[in-house]
């Protein structure tokens, strides 16, 4: 069979979303960011809302998200994406607005903006990628770094006596009345990808209904920052990150999910 015989519409089983640009991803091979980007773009494409969507990129590894997402985007100062998104959503109430942030951006320098945007119940979607480390600046300790986990600024492992415990900001904001949906996902297996995409879709739909804020945490790997091979980093993530950052729904349709 020749190639030309294969590339017929009826044989198509998978197509990359047109909302991802052809630019080469700046992420390390094995990193979860590419998949997370793709899921958000697929949702926007499938909902047919590209003309009414504005994204906000953070500072961190995904600072260049606008190079890969073929939609209108703003790049925000470090931690300020929820404030930037607040203003876009308030002044264009008929648009879909989302932020895409990492754990340093959202849970350290941007804690105030995160909590207050959540508390005001802004009609935005926050995609929060948590890999427990500062990736872009070279693997420094993040607020989400696990106890004992080494990083370039906690070379002997995170000492919770002096640096505090990992901040579960997702659980923290779930308690705020303005927050409508909160869930935690992963994107390293098909099963997880499907669940994550479903949650992102629901988040975008609910902001349209002006239900309030949806925060979706994606627990991901950072094989470079963790100094591991990609496969090994995913295994480490399952063994160490998931027990601490438990996957699943935390709040759905404004109601807390009781797991016990």
């Amino acid at each position: 069979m020749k190639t030309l015989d294969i590339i017929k519409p009826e044989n198509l089983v998978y197509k990359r979303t047109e909302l991802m640009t052809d630019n080469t991803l700046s992420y390390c091979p094995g990193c979860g960011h590419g998949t997370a980007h793709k899921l958000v773009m697929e949702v926007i494409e499938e909902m047919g809302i590209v003309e009414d969507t504005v994204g906000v990129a953070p500072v961190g590894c995904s600072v260049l998200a606008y190079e890969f997402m073929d939609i209108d985007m703003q790049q925000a100062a470090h931690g300020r994406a929820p404030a930037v998104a607040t203003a876009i959503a308030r002044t264009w109430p008929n648009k879909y607005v989302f932020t895409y942030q990492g754990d340093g951006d959202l849970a350290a320098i941007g804690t105030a903006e995160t909590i207050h945007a959540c508390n005001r119940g802004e009609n935005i979607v926050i995609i929060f990628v948590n890999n427990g480390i500062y990736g872009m600046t070279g693997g420094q300790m993040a607020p989400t770094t696990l106890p004992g986990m080494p990083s370039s600024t906690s070379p002997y492992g995170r000492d919770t006596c002096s640096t505090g415990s990992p901040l579960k900001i997702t659980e923290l904001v779930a308690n705020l009345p303005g927050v409508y949906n909160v869930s935690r996902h992963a994107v390293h297996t098909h099963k997880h990808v499907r669940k994550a995409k479903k949650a992102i879709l629901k988040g975008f739909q609910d902001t349209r209904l002006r239900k309030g804020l949806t925060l979706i945490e994606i627990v991901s790997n950072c094989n470079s920052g963790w100094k591991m091979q990609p496969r090994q980093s995913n295994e480490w993530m399952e063994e160490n990150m998931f027990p601490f950052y438990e996957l699943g729904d935390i709040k759905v349709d404004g109601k807390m999910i009781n797991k016990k």
Partner: protein
Amino acid sequence: MAEIKLMKGNEALAEAAIRAGVDAYFGYPITPQSEVIEYLMMEQPEKTTGMVVLQAESEVAAINMVYGAAGAGKRVMTSSSSPGISLKQEGISYMAGAELPAVIVNVVRGGPGLGTIQPSQADYFQSVKGGGHGDYKLYVLAPASVQEMADHVEDAFEMAFKYRTPVLILSDGVIGQMMEKVQFKEFKPRWTDDEIYQLHGNWATTGKKKGRERNIITSLDLKSEKMEGRVHRLMKKYAQMEEEDLRFETIKCEDAEYLIVAYGSSARIAQKTVDLARAKGIKVGLLRPITLFPFPKKQLMEFTKQVKGILSVELSMGQMVEDVRLAVEHKVPVEHFGRTGGIIHTPEEILDALQQKLIKN
């Protein structure tokens, strides 16, 4: 003829914002400018013009809200006072870099630090030399009356969109807190969505329409050549501002032998000094820069052919005086006088300084 009202400068600014078709105001309370957000909250323009008014969680959040709305093609503004403006500097630098139009108001109080809540003009350097990090400037308007607090809002937005750059209205506690007569212009409607698509659809993030490239608002250029190009683009704008949009006023300068240079509240006070001096037979004139950047450099140089000396008067220990000295290239003596820490100099004090520092007999 529009109705004459008696209002505080801060209130007049807020009313003018509603009337200028401003889409959004994001702010945080701080003395002596809290009347701006209080007035807007009381007036509820969201119900009339649709203007969004939001009290942010901090000055930092407020300026980044301004960034977001400006990047989406809206007329947006914020106001604060000195310590709050320091907090906003990061966002202002980002806006200058990302070439976003917006209006920022500083009702200056004394510093450094928490300083005093009393009036000051000690934020001159911060205002005209950049303020945040990087190679940039702001277009800076300095109102000297309640009427100008109102009028400068629309002027500032005109400049902000002409140059796609943040514009600063540099006021102070005197102008913000005093009441004077003010007359407002007719209501100007906010832009419709379609007007924004048409006017700003080629750069603002309003949603990627079919047939156009995506719009990106960013101040980041990881390639140095591109970044240098971006800064050169900014510098071209600043040069154009100097050519086309310099503003100043001269009072009783025709026969002046001495010149006072003062802006904002100091210009008002110094205007009385001019009268006191002339009553004593000393021929003094006043040059009031209305824009602090661009600065009336050429005009000052012209005055060196006429006057024996120049006194720069500001509520600071001497900041604008440096720009005056640069402008006149030592052709005539340039001295500074000013009180600081929240103390306001009197017309008489200025006259004494003029006599002691320049006339010397």
